[in-house]
């Protein structure tokens, strides 16, 4: 049973007042919410996702003074989570493991090399701007397809097609 914004906000304010029980309940309630958030946006194994969840919980706890009780709580918490997610991509030097191309690549040599990393940012420069923007939004900025569609002012299927075509082009460039 997922906690509501009101319940989470009440717990958060309790924690801000020094109530450790409320703070514990808050963090416990947030963990599955964060997990779902990252699972939709980050293509990583369960351990990588859990690392992100833990990083976010630490940040939410240690930086809680930056939450303004007059404003929505989940917006604040998601802002922290999104920052940690972008930082996750950045720390991996804006690269994407090659197994993210797995949906269009089935060549054995690439599967063997799937531990290698490619500088996606450089590769994106070769794409038409719509495809590059769609890939950048979903793979690097960590937006969902819906958010990327809203940002670009196009439909969700348009985003998905752009990503698919862009990845196909990149795969060809990388030399499949």
């Amino acid at each position, binding site marked *: 049973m997922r906690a509501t914004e009101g319940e989470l906000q009440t717990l958060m304010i309790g924690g801000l007042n*020094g109530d450790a029980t409320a703070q514990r309940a808050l963090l416990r309630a947030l963990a599955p919410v964060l997990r779902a958030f990252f699972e939709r946006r980050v293509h990583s194994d369960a351990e990588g996702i859990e690392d992100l969840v833990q990083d976010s919980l630490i940040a939410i706890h240690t930086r809680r*003074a930056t939450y303004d009780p007059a404003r929505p709580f989940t917006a604040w918490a998601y802002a922290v989570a999104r920052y940690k997610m972008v930082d996750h991509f950045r720390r991996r030097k804006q690269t994407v493991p090659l197994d993210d191309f797995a949906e269009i690549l089935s060549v054995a040599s690439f599967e063997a090399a799937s531990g290698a990393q490619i500088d996606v940012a450089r590769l994106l420069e070769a794409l038409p701007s719509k495809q590059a923007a769609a890939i950048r939004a979903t793979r690097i900025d960590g937006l969902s397809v819906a958010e990327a569609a809203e940002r670009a002012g196009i439909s969700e299927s348009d985003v998905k097609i752009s990503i698919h075509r862009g990845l196909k082009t990149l795969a060809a460039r990388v030399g499949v």
Partner: protein
Amino acid sequence: MRPTTDMLIDTLVLDVPPVRAGAVERRVLAGLAIGAVLVCIVIFATLGVRPDLAQAVHRPTIWMKWGYTASLGAIALYALLRLARPERRGLGMLWTFVVPVVLLGVVAAVDMARTPPAAMPHLWFGHSWRHCSMLVLALSLPIFGGFLWAIRALAPTRLRLAGAMAGLSAGGFAATLYGFACQETSALFVLTWYSLGIVAPMLIGSIIGPRVLRW
């Protein structure tokens, strides 16, 4: 619930100090205050307060200078307080920077219209143009450092902009304190050389922000 996350949460909630309202503001203002005190000490010890300060405050010029620099510092400070929190909120208020610049520009234009060509270079360069901007930049550093110290404990998500606003605010307030020592009176001089010294730390902040403010 994964067990390691469970344990992490139990560890985190061992320390749940109460957070008073206005914690962000207090932290940032503390950074400003510490830096400003250092700047005052440096000004006293090196440049010295201008000897005619008691008379100068009865004339409008020093208030014009203080008004210009302090309003830049204050607007940037307001932006910085917003940037210290993680949510992406609108920063449309940044357009208000235009107001002090335009006002000072009008005064400078009126000055220039009333100044004979032979006296124009002095109106623009004054006595101290060579070191004014550098001094403002140098004096901004302690306040800039104070802001960075404060922000690093908070949750900025737009690091370049946060660094820039920290630098701009530090420059504005440092220039205000510098106004206690500097005896230039021309609005054109202030608009040029003070602004240069105020913009320099802003550029530095925009460059080092993404490196220094990460959390």
